[in-house]
């Protein structure tokens, strides 16, 4: 299943533990882990296509969270996006939301987390997984991944 999928499972487990034991620390780790699941989903997909297996880990470390966040994507026709474009927007939106939530979960001790925050993070990650897997072979998705890596258009 790979690191990304394992992290998503971990996020679910942490969320369940947070609910069962009413533990804020587990809820925060669940949100953070959900973000990293999507982060690794995208990074692993990118580096898997690099032909030199021994260099993939180094290539993965070149990804920068902020550059990934700032990579913009908009459908060609905003009023009439294609199915692929719609799914890609959902992935990009989920990634950015998860990144912001991860930052709050890790650093904002004033954030009064509720169960819905955790459920939403896991839902967003699951959505990102399913939609990315649906579009990952499309040229728009590959192009966006290049932008997330930091390549200029």
């Amino acid at each position, binding site marked *: 299943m790979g690191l990304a999928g394992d992290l998503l499972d971990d996020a679910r487990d942490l969320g369940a533990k947070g609910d069962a034991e009413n533990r804020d620390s587990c809820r925060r780790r669940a949100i953070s882990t959900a973000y990293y699941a999507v982060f690794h989903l995208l990074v692993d997909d990118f580096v898997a296509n690099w032909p030199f297996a021994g260099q993939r880990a180094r290539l993965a470390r070149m990804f920068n969270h*902020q550059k990934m966040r700032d990579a913009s994507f908009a459908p060609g026709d905003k009023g009439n996006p294609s199915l692929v474009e719609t799914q890609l927007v959902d992935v990009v939106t989920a990634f950015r*939301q998860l990144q912001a939530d991860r930052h709050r979960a890790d650093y904002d001790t004033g954030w009064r987390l509720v169960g819905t925050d955790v459920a939403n993070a896991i839902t967003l990650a699951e959505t990102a997984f399913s939609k990315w897997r649906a579009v990952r072979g499309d040229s728009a998705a590959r192009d966006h991944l290049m932008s997330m890596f930091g390549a200029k258009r």
Partner: protein
Amino acid sequence: MEMNAPIAFTKQAEIQAAVEEVERNLAPDVVRIRFDIGEDWSGQWAIFFRVVLTDEAAKQRLREVASNVVWGLARQLDFSAMGVFPYHNFRSVSEQGALQEPAWA
């Protein structure tokens, strides 16, 4: 980084109107939506939506309802043109009842 105030600050009436329409369209699942404009964790301008859902919607249909909210707002508001990125957070009526946070009231 460009830190001039985004156009969104001058569009709050338009944003509020869009919010009210989404509330109407997605009732009763969506109880209310509040928003404010500010900087996100990285210092970029953002609009933060706080969405209160019925307990049933939050527990049983969060994926569907949250997606409807996100897309409903995006269809009506050009966030990119407003110079902000949208963030959406959700909680249930019961959760807000327990926390009593004014920003969500």
